[in-house]
């Protein structure tokens, strides 16, 4: 069969299809490029930061090389060759002022290295030729510590799993990875709490959102559209506005406490502590995320024909049976969609826990922010971020399987 211009129809159709595909790609390309450059590249950069360790081998190349022959298990401080290499490396590093950067990097693994390098850095110019080992040992006791040397040796590669180990409260002391002592464990605990709080918030959202969504889905359109505004207004209101509203309500001198004291339910000296703890975080975040639960629930419930429940009742089911056996199962996809949505938004929350969370209501995000802007342990911050990202992606994938990203509806 031939097309109008004489080419075989099959080829002509194939060409048309190719052209169509190309046109689609051309339209998508600018955004794809934009998102890859402004968003995906940063995420990849973060992945990279969580494992890269080039600072150590780049700053101390000779020392790293010389340390290859040294065995930490020997129980002896490395020999003259290593110290001579160290002297050469440090002299260059001090001039470039990079020795303190390496020191801060290694200090994350072994406290004390920062001052060891800083103090030695001042004296390294005065080193005399030969007999470096003795000169360094005179300079600072730290150079005689096996722990210091094995730390340098362990972190001499271009890449390290150290940040990830730290991010799950483990360390590699030379005999393989093991958990840190109980009182130093924090991240697994924080991940656990973030998870637990997110589940709690998801659950309270479901508990509060289900009846509302049901009401909205069954009321006449005019009324439900009106009531829908009460759901959409919070959804469209700035996160900080809502957080400050909760601070106004919950704080000790706040509206709720004042009201309770005025009514006489509370004594002025026993005001409720509802903020700067988990209660504050849960209340404020439930309010903030509730629309994310109601909207998907509503759109699913909208599609459930009321005749099913009526049929069940006319066949003799009680109200409860009709709801539980007939209506509820049909609303489960909405529950799944809403719950996963709320959960993935909640698990990465930062602002609200930071402002109302106090000490026991903070999330892993707050710790990530701390490492980026305060402690400057960027590698550890990145590793924590990568783990959190992994968790979110798993749930996102589930969401995609259940609901499909194409079916996300807004407003």
């Amino acid at each position: 069969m031939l097309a109008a211009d004489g080419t075989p129809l099959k080829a002509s159709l194939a060409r048309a299809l190719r052209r169509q595909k190309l046109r689609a790609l051309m339209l998508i390309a600018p955004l794809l490029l934009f998102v890859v450059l402004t968003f995906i590249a940063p995420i990849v950069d973060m992945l990279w930061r969580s494992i890269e360790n080039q600072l150590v081998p780049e700053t101390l190349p000779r020392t790293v090389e010389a340390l290859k022959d040294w065995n930490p298990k020997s129980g002896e401080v490395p020999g003259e060759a290593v110290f001579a290499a160290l002297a050469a490396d440090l002299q260059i590093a001090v001039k470039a002022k990079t020795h303190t950067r390496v020191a801060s990097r290694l200090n994350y693994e072994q406290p004390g290295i920062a001052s060891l390098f800083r103090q030695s850095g001042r004296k390294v110019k005065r080193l005399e030729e030969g007999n470096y080992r003795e000169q360094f040992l005179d300079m600072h006791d730290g150079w005689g510590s096996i722990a210091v040397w094995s730390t340098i040796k362990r972190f001499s590669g271009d890449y390290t799993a150290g940040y990830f180990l730290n991010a799950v409260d483990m360390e590699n002391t030379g005999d393989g990875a093991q958990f840190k002592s109980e009182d130093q464990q924090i991240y697994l605990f924080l991940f656990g709490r973030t998870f637990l709080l997110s589940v709690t918030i998801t659950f309270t959202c479901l508990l509060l959102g289900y009846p509302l969504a049901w009401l909205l889905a069954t009321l006449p359109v005019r009324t439900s559209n009106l009531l829908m505004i009460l759901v959409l207004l919070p959804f469209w209101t700035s996160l900080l506005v809502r957080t400050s509203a909760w601070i106004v309500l919950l704080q000790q001198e706040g509206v709720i406490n004042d009201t309770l004291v005025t009514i006489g339910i509370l004594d002025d000296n026993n005001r409720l502590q509802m903020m700067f703890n988990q209660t504050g975080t849960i209340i404020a975040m439930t309010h903030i995320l509730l629309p994310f639960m109601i909207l998907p629930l509503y759109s699913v419930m909208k599609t459930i024909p009321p005749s099913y429940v009526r049929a069940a009742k006319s066949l003799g089911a009680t109200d409860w049976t009709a709801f539980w056996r007939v209506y509820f199962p049909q609303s489960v996809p909405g529950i799944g969609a809403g719950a996963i949505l709320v959960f993935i938004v909640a698990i990465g929350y930062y602002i609200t826990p930071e402002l109302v969370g106090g000490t026991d209501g903070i999330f892993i995000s707050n710790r990530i922010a701390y490492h980026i802007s305060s402690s400057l342990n960027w590698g550890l911050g990145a590793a924590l971020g990568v783990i959190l990202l992994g968790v979110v992606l798993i749930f996102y994938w589930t969401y995609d399987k259940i609901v499909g990203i194409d079916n996300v509806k807004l407003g």
Partner: protein
Amino acid sequence: MAGLPPYASTGQRVWYYTFRFICALLFLFLIIPILVIIPLSFNAEDFFTFTKKMLALDPEGYSLKHYRDFLTNTDWQNALYNSVRIAPMATLLSVSFGTLAAIGLSQSHVPFRGVIMAILISPMIVPLIISAAGMYFFYSRIGLQGTYWGVVLAHAALGTPFVIITVTATLVGFDKSLVRAAANLGADPVRTFFKVQMPLIVPGVISGALFAFITSFDEVVVVLFLGSASQKTLPWQMFTGLREQISPTILAVATILVTISILLLTTLEYLRRRSERLRGMTPQ
């Protein structure tokens, strides 16, 4: 159960009204926190709570001083100025890239559609703190950290998924035979696009733009990391305010922002109805 049937038993009646009451309480829970700040923003005192005078509805208990502070304080004015400078630019970028891509994505044959969609939607899925951290690291490397364009690009990236979703949604209901009809009648593809497709997807584009705008306008985590003092936006100023000196000026700002949200919501609702009406008229 739109209404109570006349044959309902007493138990059903009690439950019906209890349920309505619970729902009313839940609606109050949703809306009260937003409403409570409005009267408080007119507080004549520097308190975060209702004073006796306010409760007695004494006009002396109320004043506009926190609004005056917002309008005269340079910190707040700079913040407002920066927000107004950043959000429209970010919106413009999100909308232009996003609309093109949405049109591309709704063609019938798109290779690697799943993967592409996942990448394009990812800024909406990845927790903000992770986006902020990654952007902070990466933008530092390329010299965009602490610059106007750094914040704008970041916000534009965060806004694009919303544009894609809203525009694709309007295109799903789009009747392809209209394009063919236009072509049959002799219109070239560009003309077809502007005369036939464009008017139909405009509501989607505008609501996408509103989403992108509000995303940038309300965003605080990313700007907190990426910005420097000359990109300090309103939400950032509010965040510092809440953390450091809690002044009722924040409530005045909050009230203004709530008003803006109401305006946005009204526009969106109007657009939604318009597009439903228009689509209802499309010949099937």
